[in-house]
């Protein structure tokens, strides 16, 4: 039995209901359920969140703008007899940004899904495309929201604003004659 750090799952995080899911990073996990739970602990310690998605990195097929321009499609042809199914499309729109959920296409293979994504999901610029079968995504359940995402909001001591060192230090230095009054 080989000892590994478990497969990687990409994590997508939705801060508000009116915003798309964004790639927050990845977690190592043995299966989707633990990937979801780990993603919550790794990525939702502070920021607001309403939904998390996890998908095994191996299930994502990507294409950069450079590869697209050179016609270098990834070799992921269809399995024979595989029916069309929904694929989620994530696109990196700016160099400093991360992948953003931009829509959905039908496809019977990752390669076909990518081709359709390029044709049908019109965003500009599009620097990198990712597609994955929708069935390979595990999403947090809406009714679990309060227990998954609520508790992080209730820990003010994790916020630097909870500590008043600046004003404490200013008062001390003022009394020490190091700083003039009114600074």
């Amino acid at each position, binding site marked *: 039995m080989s000892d590994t750090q478990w497969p990687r799952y990409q994590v997508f995080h939705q801060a508000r209901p009116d915003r798309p899911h964004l790639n927050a990073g990845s977690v190592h996990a043995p299966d989707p359920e633990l990937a979801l739970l780990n993603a919550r602990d790794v990525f939702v310690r502070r920021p607001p969140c309403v939904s998390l998605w996890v998908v095994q990195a191996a299930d994502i097929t990507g294409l950069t703008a450079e590869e697209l321009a050179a016609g270098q499609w990834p070799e992921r042809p269809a399995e024979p007899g595989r029916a069309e199914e929904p694929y989620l499309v994530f696109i990196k729109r700016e160099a400093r940004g991360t992948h953003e959920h931009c829509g959905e296409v039908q496809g019977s293979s990752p390669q076909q899904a990518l081709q359709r994504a390029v044709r049908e999901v019109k965003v500009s610029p599009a620097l990198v495309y990712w597609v994955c079968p929708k069935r390979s995504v595990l999403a947090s359940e809406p009714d679990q929201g*309060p*227990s*998954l995402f609520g*508790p992080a909001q209730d820990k003010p001591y994790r916020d630097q604003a909870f500590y008043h060192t600046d004003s404490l230090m200013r008062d001390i230095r003022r009394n020490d004659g190091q700083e003039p009054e009114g600074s």
Partner: protein
Amino acid sequence: MNTGTAGALAAYLLGLADDELILAHRDSEWTGHAPILEEDIAFSNLALDELGHAGLWYAAHAELLGENPQTRPDELAFLREPADFRNVQMVELPNGDWAFSMLRQYLFDAAEMVRLEALVNSRHKPTAETAAKIRQEERYHLRHTAAWVRRLGLGTEESHRRMQAALEMLFPYAEQLFQPQDGQAGLVDQGYIPSEQATVADWRGRVRQDLEGADLRLPEAAESPAASRAAHSEHLAQLLSEMQVVARSDRGAAW
């Protein structure tokens, strides 16, 4: 609420608080030593939550007795003798291996869930509100620990063996969580706390389902090691001597 009832309810809440504090302390000992980085983060989170719960129950206990809820919790945690703690023995046991710690956390989370579901209806409003707040976090704890119990129970022959051994050891201790203490009968009658009989039956049903689903065999019902929460193993004194050492080094100091 008359003084006698307030005193009895305060004693009950102190038991809840001490359970959370000692378990949080044990859980925090895994920080930096967990089997994988993601679980270091997750298990520390459990400890953090439990510590928060302890603080809430200590404050509720203090308010009932007319004591200062800002200062009393630290005094209770850091300046009491072992004999004055009211936690169950299960939480003071040393951590053992990962199977032991995870199973202990699961058994505790399942018991807490059942208890909180009743306490949200307590006639004592502050208790009901605290229970509601804690329950959100506990839902997540139980999801996490139940997932782990299942995976360790069903994983490999080694993980199964370790889980079964942990269950043999922990199950009798877990029953102590449901031992009614002196003076509590009145609290049940007046709707402040649930009856332990109902709670333990509910708990046994839920854990049986999860544990058998993980291919684990429940031990025969055994006598729990101690009926009274005032009785402790030798582990508590050792634990507290470490936990309290800095606070006691200068009792008058603000830390």
